[in-house]
């Protein structure tokens, strides 16, 4: 019964949030339960009176009154239902937005290590699914809960109606419905499985239908004539993989036949038994009609209770994933000490070792290095030597496994996280721009100091391009927000990212492979600007192009997670057995 244990905590969590933000929503839910629970009784009681009257006295004024009562009550229910739907839909939209905001905020504020953790990534996928109306969402939960409660109300009423007139019929109905429920519960078990399969399958479905269609594959497919390969794979999927679903279907069909059989038998029993009672003058035709309707409602509501409890368990299974994600603990936000505002800061790595979560090997080993204010450090090494990890630790995206990183002599973990990150301007290798305006991208905020933005643009070497843009700083980056947005080239985007780093004006600047997408002249340009870009700030420069080492004070050569050499270029290049010389020579020989 594992599936059921989360129902209460989950409902408490989500309705708790709903209650805090949209109190009237809870009222609307209650009204809905009452209206849909009680409305079946109109069509149980009133038509009976009409039939009795038609078969008996046939008084026109009584008939008019009865018909008026019937249609007006039905009208009232119908209008009430419309109103309830109107209000609850509005609340659902707002609550859904609220949950989206919560999810996004969580994604953006949680510990960075979580964002590179495959389990958390999967958890996020599941969390989003929990808010999708196909699987979960507060809308479906409320709908299911409402159906459940109104079924309980209807059941209570029909038990009273049927039990009073015909206790035996009630007993038979309970037996038939119980059998039916057993089948439905097994059927639903199958359908939970179906939904699970569906999720697995959706990834495949998405790949074969949507992903493979993307134009980006165009060149490879043509030059390598991959058309037969791709056609075969899609065809296999459409004709084999997809039809595996039929297996599930066949099993489900057995249950469908059984429930149909039971329902038909129940109907036959109902009409036969009650018919005989009418013929033997035990009940009137009006009562016959009433009992038929009431019995059908009874069976329907009993089945509704079981189905909706199962349904609720299924919905909660998905929504619980959302709850788990939103409640993931953040451990990095423990520090509270504000960083003292100053232009000069010293950073020291003291015997730092680091292993990624779940990794077997250390990515950094006993790294000790001090960055004095205004120093320029170049970090070099082969792919996978630990350069990027070093930067991630510096940015406090991860905390060291062993050792300490000190800012002005204090362990950085003691500082308030946001306040510490204020110190850093970073252009990551895989930097991302937003689909907002250039101004907003450079300022990384909705408001900007235009003079400073332009100065940053100029220092980053983007001024000339900016002048060609009709809308200047208001130009949107990408077309997501604005049809007239501009898709900048790799080199241009990189300059925008550099401008953003300059605008931030933080005391420490990190540039990770900033020239990878640039042609030689643009690269030369950046190298030449390096001094004016950085000024007297502390700077760290990572590059495969060792040429960049020439304008840094010191070079740290990483190999297998360790700093194997440290010093200025002229010194390191003299050690002909060192890693640095090997790399330098590999590139330099082509330029001799």
């Amino acid at each position, binding site marked *: 019964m594992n599936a059921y244990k989360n129902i209460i905590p989950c409902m408490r969590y989500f309705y708790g949030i709903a209650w805090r933000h949209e109190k009237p929503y809870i009222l609307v839910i209650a009204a809905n339960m009452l209206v849909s629970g009680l409305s079946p009784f109109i069509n149980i009681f009133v038509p009976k009176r*009409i*039939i009795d009257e*038609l*078969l008996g006295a*046939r008084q026109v004024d009584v*008939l008019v009154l009865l*018909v008026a009562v019937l249609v*007006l009550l039905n009208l009232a229910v119908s209008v009430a239902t*419309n*109103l309830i739907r*109107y209000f609850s839909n*509005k609340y659902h*939209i*707002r609550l859904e*937005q609220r949950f989206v905001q919560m*999810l*996004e905020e969580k994604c*953006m504020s949680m510990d960075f290590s979580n*964002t*590179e953790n495959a389990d958390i990534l999967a958890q996020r996928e599941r969390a*989003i699914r929990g808010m999708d109306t196909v699987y979960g969402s507060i809308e479906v939960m409320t709908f299911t809960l409402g159906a459940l409660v109104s079924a309980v109300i209807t059941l209570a009423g029909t038990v009273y109606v049927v039990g009073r007139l015909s206790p035996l019929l009630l007993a038979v109905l309970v037996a038939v419905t119980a059998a039916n429920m057993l089948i439905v519960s097994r059927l639903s078990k199958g*359908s939970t499985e179906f939904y699970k399969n569906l999720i697995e399958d959706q*990834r495949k479905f998405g*790949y*074969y239908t949507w*992903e493979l269609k993307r*134009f980006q594959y165009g060149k490879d497919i*043509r030059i*390598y*004539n991959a058309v037969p390969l791709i056609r075969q794979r*899609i*065809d296999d999927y*459409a004709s084999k993989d*997809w039809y595996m679903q039929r297996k599930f279907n066949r099993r489900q069909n057995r249950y469908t*036949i059984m429930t149909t059989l039971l329902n038909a038998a129940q109907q036959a029993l109902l*009409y*036969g038994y009650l*018919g005989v009672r009418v*013929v033997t003058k035990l009940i009137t*035709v009006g009562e016959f*009609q009433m009992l038929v309707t009431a019995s059908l409602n009874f069976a329907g509501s009993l089945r509704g209770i079981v189905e909706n409890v199962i349904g609720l368990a299924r919905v909660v299974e998905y929504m619980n994933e959302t709850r788990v994600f939103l409640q993931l603990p953040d451990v990095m936000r423990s520090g509270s000490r504000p960083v003292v505002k100053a232009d000069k800061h010293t950073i020291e790595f003291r015997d730092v070792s680091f292993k990624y979560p779940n990794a077997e090997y250390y990515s950094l080993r006993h790294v000790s290095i001090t960055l004095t204010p205004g120093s320029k450090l170049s970090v070099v090494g082969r*792919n*996978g030597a630990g350069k990027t990890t070093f930067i991630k630790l510096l*940015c406090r*995206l991860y905390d060291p496994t062993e050792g300490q990183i000190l800012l002005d002599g204090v362990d950085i973990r003691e500082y308030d996280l946001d306040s510490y990150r204020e110190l850093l301007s*970073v252009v990551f290798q895989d930097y*991302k721009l937003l689909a907002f305006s250039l101004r907003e991208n450079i300022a990384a*905020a*909705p408001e900007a100091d235009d003079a400073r933005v332009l100065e940053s643009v100029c220092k980053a070497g983007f001024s000339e391009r900016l002048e060609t843009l009709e809308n200047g700083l208001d130009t949107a980056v990408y077309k*997501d927000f604005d049809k007239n947005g501009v898709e900048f080239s790799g080199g241009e985007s990189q300059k925008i990212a550099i401008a*953003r780093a300059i605008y931030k004006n933080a005391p420490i600047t990190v540039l990770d492979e900033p020239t990878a997408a640039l*042609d030689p002249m643009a*690269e*030369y340009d950046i190298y030449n600007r390096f001094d004016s870009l950085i000024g007297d700030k502390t700077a760290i420069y990572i590059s495969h192009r*060792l040429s960049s080492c*020439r304008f840094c004070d010191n070079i740290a050569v990483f190999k297998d997670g360790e700093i194997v050499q440290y010093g200025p*270029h002229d010194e390191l290049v003299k050690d002909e057995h060192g890693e640095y010389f090997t*790399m330098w020579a*590999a*590139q330099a020989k082509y330029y001799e």
Partner: protein
Amino acid sequence: MEKKEKPRYSLAENFMWMLRCIREFDPRLFAWIAMNAVSTALGHMVPIVMPKLIIDELTGGGRVERVVTLAVLFGAALFITNGITGISYGFGTIPSGSMSIRFIALRIRFHARQNLKNMTLDYQKLEDPETLDMAQRAERAMYGNYEGVEGMSRLVLTMFRSLLTLIGTVSIVVVMGYWLLLVTLGVLIVNYIVSNRARIRDKQIADALAPTNRKINYMERMSGDFKYGKDIRIYSLKDFILTRLKKEHGVHFKEASKRQKIALFSGNIGSLTALVQEIAMYAWLCRLVVKGALGIGSFLMYITSIRTFSSSLNELLEGFVSLQRQSAVICDYRAYVEIPDTPSGGAPVPADILRNGAEIEFEHVSFKYPGSDKYALYDVSFKINLREKLAVVGLNGAGKSTFIKLLMRLYKPESGRILLGGADIQTYDRDEYFRLFSAVFQEINTFAFTIAENVSMQEYDKTDLPRVRRCLELAGLMDKIDTLPKGVDTTMLKTLDLDGVEFSGGEIQKLALARALYKDAPFIVLDEPTAALDALAEERLYMEFDKLTRDKTAIYISHRLASTRFCDRVILFENGAIAECGTHDELLNQGGKYAELFGVQAQYYRDSEEAEALV
């Protein structure tokens, strides 16, 4: 105001097209549709007719055995009709029934058809924004179970079903006179008009909301995409993004509330018209009973049948509205998949050229991108010798990529000719011509298939596995692959297989190299193949370049001018034209742009005193 265009195909044409597609993709579906429609229509008739017969017996003859027989018959009829309906299409919300799977399978086929069009269009068209737009519109025809192509195929079923039910109920009610039918029809028409107007207004609001929704989608995607994680944290973008998201959510909510209000209004009109219908129905039927013209059994039967009549007619009307909507989307779909294929005929490439390659000559070739008025290449004349190693250099945007795309016939020259062994390449069969080239592109795409398939780019049973291993070895990736339990049979990416492998940038570049080697074509094009490699891995590729490209014509594009050292000739592009051409030494001596670029890069590697003087 947008002018209303005449749709490409009429509703009837699209409906017939859909029937033809079903016949082509899954003809058995017709049998399923017929069966389900009949069983559903009969399933509606049983609860109308059987209770009447029973009640007639109760109020008339009153024979017990007759009542029991009828009740049993009632049960049996329900079992058969509902059983068939349930097995074929299922009831309610639980997706089941063989037909659902068939309908979705149908949609997969439509996806596949569009994909085939993507793969066979001229490549040049793929980079044309107009084609992209058409393709995106066509994709809307596959947005869901009840949209576009699948939506229309399902409508074939549901409309047929309601039509049969309608005929059944009409034949019962019409016996009573058509008066009631007319009232019901009138009510439905009023309802239809109101809801149709509401729908139009609703669609206007929804359309106006599209940009807002696009923005919301973008922000949801971006803030949830952990690739943005580092920048979001370092530049404290969280609050900025959330503020924007909340603002757009506010706009969305305001408009969505309007839509709800419209729905409420038309819902209430529906309730009121239903009231009119109920009053008319009860008044008419009660009057007949009071007059003694109608038994109580028929009284109940007519109530049920009028309600069923009304709901099936309503379904039919709704179906028709939906049909119109799907038809519009299907027009977009057809417009795309029916773009005529370029006749792929043409002469086969002679066997010895396929084996050894041939000289290629550009003759006054010019090219302009669609929608651009600037020439990307202008009047380029140039000859690539057989088995030459050619380096192509130049600044970003100078025309290097356009040059190789023209060479590989991914683009067609606007003017001028490209000759292969003396004959215009346009006269050759397109697919045959592609066989001449192996290429490592700047952005490399891998597929969620096995590593072996990603190297051979062929179906698994046509893949030469030893050769795959050899090529991976040459590309320097075999060490990595040996660490994988399933070796070259490992699936790439985690999309289809959770145990799939994800390669780093450098490894992907090596895989692409292996792919090029496997193809073993006479021409090999390498576009910045070392961008993601470190200094030593890059050097290794340089060292082995000769071995890898022996007996082939090789074209090497790079920003690293060092790479030009092992090429026979260098061409430098500037502003869409070949500005310089010659060996490395010749160009250096020439003292032009190449010498300048080389100097810029080389200075950092020269003696330190000299370098310091420069910086």
